[in-house]
């Protein structure tokens, strides 16, 4: 179904935007590195691909006159979500450019701000790219080289947004949110529960692991003792 496809695409874009935001937050801090810059580049390219795909799909649907009214309302809602997502992505890209200029990595005189972060963002990047592990293959000075590409991509995104505004006129304020305030709690209680469940499962798993090992040891110890006792009994009797 077209709706489901659109939703899936939108969810993917949303995920990538969130990850991109996380990564932009770390520019200039102590966990900034060449890897981070490479991750930023890859994430942003993926985000752009997804954005283009989203736009194509949604524009074809919205231009289609044969869509029913409820469907149209639903697609307009998705459109609003999409355009807001794209706005946030563009802002983050611009900030990344600005911060990239301010904090070049290979200049010895410019020190990174000690923000207290130590770990890397590879997990976030992997989540964004939907891969298990990130591979880093960029050159040493990607932080400087990438900025030019970033500028171009920002312009592209800007143009895309402008075209979107011109081609599809969806008045944003007419869209009503489906979710009530506080909806994040309800769904994430399940998510939370699942995540808590996952945590507990993990912990259980770890506990289980430990307990398994312990049990194994105890069992084997008991077994050895039993065998020894049996041997003793046999010997004595």
């Amino acid at each position, binding site marked *: 179904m077209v709706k489901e496809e659109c939703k899936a695409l939108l969810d993917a874009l949303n995920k990538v935007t969130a990850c991109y935001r996380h990564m932009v937050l*770390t520019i200039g801090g102590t966990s900034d590195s060449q890897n981070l810059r490479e991750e930023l580049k890859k994430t942003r390219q993926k985000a752009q691909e997804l954005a283009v795909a989203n736009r194509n799909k949604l524009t074809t649907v919205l231009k289609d006159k044969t869509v029913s009214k409820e469907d149209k309302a639903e697609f307009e809602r998705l459109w*609003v979500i999409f355009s807001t997502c794209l706005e946030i992505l563009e802002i983050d890209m611009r*900030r990344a450019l600005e*911060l990239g200029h301010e*904090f070049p990595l290979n200049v010895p005189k410019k020190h990174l701000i*000690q923000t207290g972060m*130590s*770990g890397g963002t590879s997990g976030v990047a992997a989540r964004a790219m939907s891969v298990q592990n990130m591979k880093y293959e960029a050159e040493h000075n990607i932080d400087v080289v990438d900025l030019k590409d970033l500028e171009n991509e920002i312009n592209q995104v800007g143009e895309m947004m402008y075209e979107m505004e011109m081609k599809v006129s969806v008045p944003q304020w007419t869209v009503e949110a489906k979710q009530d*305030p506080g909806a994040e*709690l309800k769904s994430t209680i399940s998510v939370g529960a699942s995540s808590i469940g996952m945590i507990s499962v993990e912990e259980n798993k770890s506990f289980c692991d430990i307990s398994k090992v312990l049990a194994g040891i105890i069992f084997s110890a008991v077994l050895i003792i039993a065998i020894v006792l049996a041997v003793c009994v046999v010997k004595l009797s």
Partner: protein
Amino acid sequence: MLPRAVVVLGLLPVHSCNTSHLCYALQIEALMMEMQNPDKGIKTQTQKVMITDIPHAVAGKSNDILQWILQRLQITEEEALHLGDLFVKYGYIYPLQEPKNLTLRRDGSLYRFQTPYFWPAQSWPADDTDYAIYLAKKNIKRKGILEEYEKEHYNMLNQKINYKWDFVIMQAKEQYKAGKERKKADRYALDCQERAYWLVNRTPGMFEVQIETALSSTLLTMDMSDPSQIMYCQQAIMKSRVKSSVSLGGLVKYSEQFLSNDPILSGCLPSNPWVTDDPEFWDLNAKLVEVPTKMRVERWAFNFSELMRDPKGRQNFQLFLKKEFSGENLSFWEACEDLKYGDQSKVKEKAEEIYKLFLAPGARRWINIDGTTMGITVKGLKHPHRYVLDAAQTHIYMLMKKDSYGRYLKSPVYKEMLAKAVVPQETVKKSSNFPFGRRHLRSSPSPIILRQQEEEAKAKEAAATVDITQVMSKLDRRRTWGAVPRLPPRTPRGGGGGVAPNGCPELPPEVGQPSRLSLPPAPPGGGMAQGRVKPSQSFVFKSAAFGAEVDDSAGSRARWPTSECIQPLRGCAPCQGVHPGHPLRGVHPSLQVSCTS
């Protein structure tokens, strides 16, 4: 406090930007980056937190920060403390132990540097959408436990950006999940960072628009060699500031008061000419219409400037002022306006006239201004220009505003005008009966004609008004004199050859009041700009047909309304009689004498 000369490493001294927030921000950012220097920067230490041990968290003690500022910038301790405070207030560093207290404490409490993304920047103001996402995330993390002010913000944002709400929730969930991919210690640090950022940008208790106040001029980078910067800062300190509550209150009051007068917001009676093609609205509100609309007259009561802006209002006010014998004030004011906005090639003559008519000692319509202002004005008149009479004009304006205006509003003149004012009926758009017929489009009257009408009206009024005091004094003097000798030829005034009056003698000037006044030339349309008729002039007139500029002798202060002639009293040489077609109007009855010839 003397400004210190400091040059920030790596940044050129900023000469050109004065109030730019950006400049100060850049300087602070440069300082921040210097603080990170492992050798020369601030010493950092680890932070132990109850929940988890963050071995790599770095934080600087507040004393260290102060010491570093003192040593780096060579400023006094008070300034350093203030500067440090600013750092915290704007979010460059945030306190760890008491996050809500955005000040630099001196007791060695710990502070951490904020990530550059969250540094304050003018081009990236703290966005409502981001705040909503943050609150939703917090909701998820704390399972619905938000602070009171946060809950209010949340509800308000839900209403304000409701159409984005689905996105907000989606993004909040995703950001929350993405955050899980990081180390626990980093997650904690990230939380602290975001919380600090939003505490700075959405202060609890402030619901209104968070107006970004410009950074006060820190004494960071004042370059001693740039006197213009120093002067600018000194002037900025002395600038009077209005609290935004006051100015916004003023705006609200203004809007409320003028709401009913706004044709777009409140509609206009009888109808909007652009909609119904009916120009009655413009006719009714013409500049000097006979009977103004009620709304217009009520508007004069709002404040003095409204009264002065409206020509009809000024006319009415002048009527009132004449009764109070202070009409020269308004005439002077109007003359000054004419000087300011009128033909600049005639500035010199106009200034001279005004001086002779209003300002010279013993002038005919002498205005009452204080000595210093008079001194300044007279001095300035030696080299007249557009604004030479500004001081005097302001003085007179304030005099009228404080004194006469109040009485005017309670006077019968105003009340009569208010009673006379019309309230037009609302008309509906006429449906065109002939959809194919040609619509008769009326054009508005030509401005030339309008101006002529205006001037004629002014002339009529000038002729109609009489200077009462002069009338009474002249009356006394007239009774003592018999035959009035013919006046000696008068000195010519600016440009025109004088023509002797046609036989009507003129009274000699009043005793003891020499004047060098010369009459203004009668304009072709025939109006006298400012005019009250002196009774002396009422005897000798130049008709407008002669188009003459009446010359004045050194002694007389005659003013010549254009086309009226009144007979002198007995004993005078035969007058040519009242000119036909110019009946006397509005002259004091005691002056109306029939011709004896």
